């Protein structure tokens, strides 16, 4: 989680660039964007580790419920997945608006991405509460610990993403965002899409393949 917080700082470093200057770099790409990609490369190993832990403990359910079609609420999780995919679309539209310098649509799409993200997070809170009521506590079994750790890590990533989005949105409202800083939006977007593809993976491997 802490890394994600730090990359937040990265993403916003774009604020600091002198307006309008695009600095000469060896790759032709800005340091901030390159740093974000480097960071995302590292995140693959993080989620890989959590997913492997989950796969290792998938059937180790002790006395508690296990991963099965009747336990997971597939219709609801599918709706959640749609919400997150939709937020990816609004995110990319926000970036596109930022590149055109279209402040109005930038604000609209940023806010709607954050709102859709919040719907996803509320869905996760809902789902966790239902699971706990159904008897799957954090300490119930290695499966439950691994499941909550993996989806919880993802949820924390989403939440951090929403905070980044809202901060960007408020900065835009306050006029702190220079029109030339579309890159900040792009970098927040990279993070957001990454969180989305992690969910694409989790949804398939944990829910649908159960």
């Amino acid at each position, binding site marked *: 989680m802490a890394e994600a917080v730090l990359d937040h700082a990265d993403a916003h470093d774009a604020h600091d660039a002198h307006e*309008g200057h*695009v600095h000469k770099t060896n*790759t*032709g*790409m800005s340091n901030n*964007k*390159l740093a974000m*990609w*480097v960071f*995302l*490369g*590292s*995140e*693959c*190993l993080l*989620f*890989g*580790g959590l*997913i492997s832990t989950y*796969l*290792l403990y*998938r*059937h180790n359910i002790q006395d508690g419920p296990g991963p099965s*079609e009747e336990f997971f609420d*597939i*219709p609801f999780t*599918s709706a959640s*997945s*749609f919400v997150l*995919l*939709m937020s*990816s*679309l609004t*995110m*990319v*539209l926000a970036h*596109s608006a930022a*590149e*055109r*310098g*279209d*402040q*109005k649509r930038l604000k609209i799409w940023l806010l709607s991405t954050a709102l859709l993200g919040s719907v996803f997070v509320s869905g996760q809170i809902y789902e966790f509460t239902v699971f706990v009521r159904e008897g799957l506590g954090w300490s119930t079994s290695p499966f439950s610990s691994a499941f909550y750790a993996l989806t919880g890590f993802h949820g924390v990533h989403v939440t951090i993403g929403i905070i980044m989005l809202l901060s960007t949105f408020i900065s835009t409202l306050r*006029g702190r965002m220079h*029109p*030339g800083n*579309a890159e900040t939006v*792009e970098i927040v*977007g*990279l993070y957001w*899409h*990454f969180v*989305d*593809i992690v969910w*694409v*993976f989790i949804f*398939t*491997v944990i829910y*649908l*393949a159960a």
Partner: protein
Amino acid sequence: MSEETLTAETTKGVSGGRPTHDEHGHITDFGYVKIFVILAVITAVEVVWSYVNVPSYVFIPILFLMMLVKFYLVAAEFMHLKYDIKLFSMLFVTGLVLAGGVYLIFLSASQIWQSF
């Protein structure tokens, strides 16, 4: 809104100052919507597929294939990997391949595939 007038004045200068971005010919907003529709359709098919009763050696590979297509579409189009420099793709793919490699070896060493 004062920002908007400001925007209108500066937009030209801004896009002119960032030449690297326009050369790549980003897809349009409509293009993004089209990709989203494809993604949504694949997700719907995935969900329906998960209710179809087929043996797991058919079920799992097709499910994973659909997942990979979605994964690729988001990474290539929404994250612009297709349009950005190769280095970004290399960094990301290195992370993915390393993760896939070491964790698959680890899981194989732990003999978890028997449970599938």
